[in-house]
């Protein structure tokens, strides 16, 4: 039923461990600067790596500002515009154990591409309550937007071709911290 995924090989490293950490530190500072502190802030990470990045940003803000920013997890599968086109929907659950009403919610994802995931995330989030505002933080912006969506905080802008793939590898999932561009192996 599902077509076999093409095999990818690494083409270039984009961020190493230190650069990835510096990018997150800068984003944490920018979030505090833009919002005049951490009051009313909440992080919502998109499964799976966005959640990990959201926790890291919250830890950085705790270090810089001393504030505790709540972190939630969003699963957007039920809001996808390609449900029924992509094989079996895998539901892993939304877990936002705080009210987002009146909060400044910072959505966190690892790679921003077409913007369709963020479109779904906005719908999913607004179904849970009415936040004061929603901002978007992404570690990598690789372009090729199909919707009018832009990030507020970017770790790195990375021009890519559509056939390439960007892999964000994080210690918690992959045992290492780095970002690489991959390209399909020629058959």
């Amino acid at each position: 039923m599902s077509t076999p995924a093409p095999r990818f090989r690494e083409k270039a490293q984009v961020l190493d461990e230190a650069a990835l950490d510096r990018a997150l530190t800068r984003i944490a500072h920018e979030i505090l600067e833009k919002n005049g502190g951490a009051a009313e802030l909440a992080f919502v990470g998109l499964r799976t790596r966005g959640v990990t990045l959201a926790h890291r940003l919250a830890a950085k803000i705790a270090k810089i500002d001393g504030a505790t920013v709540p972190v939630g997890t969003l699963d957007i599968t039920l809001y996808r515009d390609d449900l029924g086109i992509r094989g079996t929907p895998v539901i892993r659950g939304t877990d936002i154990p705080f009210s987002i009403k009146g909060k400044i919610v910072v959505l966190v994802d690892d790679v921003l591409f077409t913007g369709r995931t963020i479109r779904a995330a906005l719908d999913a989030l607004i179904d849970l309550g009415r936040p004061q505002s929603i901002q978007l933080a992404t570690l990598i912006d690789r372009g090729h937007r199909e919707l009018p969506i832009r990030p507020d905080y970017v770790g790195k802008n990375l021009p890519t071709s559509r056939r390439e793939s960007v892999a964000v590898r994080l210690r918690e999932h992959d045992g290492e911290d780095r970002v690489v561009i991959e390209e399909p192996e020629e058959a």
Partner: protein
Amino acid sequence: MGWTRKDLLTMRELDAGEIVLLVDTAASLQEIATREIKKVPALRGKTIVNLFYEPSTRTRTSFEIAGKWLSADVINFSASGSSTSKGESFIDTAKNIAAMSPDVVVVRHSSAGAAELLARELACSVVNAGDGAHEHPTQALLDLLTIREKKGHFDGLHVAIVGDITNSRVARSNIHGMRKLGMTVTVAGPPTLIPPFVQELGVKVAYRLEDAIRDVDVIMLLRLQHERMRAGLIPSVREYSRYWGLTLDKLGRHARPDVLIMHPGPVNRGVELSPELADGPYSVILDQVAKGVAVRMGVLLLLAGSKGAAAA
């Protein structure tokens, strides 16, 4: 692990991986019930028809809520007040409904095999919501979800199913599901209500309540299905209750202190289960009902939201 079936007809046909996929999907969907706005757009534009030829409150309502929370349009069709009372046959009714292009038909019928017959006739997905004394897969799935949430796992658990086993589709679906997940099942009841050769399903049989409930993790009680029962199988309801009704006293003397009491409903209080137990701390009966909605959401989502599954 992907979902590839057009229909959900029996637990017997599923493998352990498919059962776990259904239970996992349902578990993740439970969170929707706690939201202020209980609706997600997953099945927007899909049509679900509830085709019920037997009375049902829990199952029909639960499928209806599940469909609505997923944003599908749900149409209820019950046999009374429909053209069935004007003499239309089951298949003709079904074909007429199919002509209106539903995505899923949920069917309950008093005849075993009704859902399978429908699945062969219709291009859309069919869910068996109970066919005679044969199977009731979504009930078994919600029982499994309840058990996993309370016990944390399936491995090596021992379940006693007590009561009218012969007439129970809930028992049959649960036996198939539990055996595939590596659980031990003991069925118990008056010999007249235990089907012959039931051991071939891989279960143990007990003919005394105290033997059945000793050292088990879960006791599942069943209602006497008078509507399917021939006369004379039990001397009287009072005698049944005396020997097979579970009370706090019998539980305290024979069962483990961490046992779960389950019942698919409707409960006949004071017959198979004493009121203080039905409402007591061992009982997870209302958890079962709540999980029923999540399980039906999961089933509808996998059938109508998977690529290939619902393809006609």
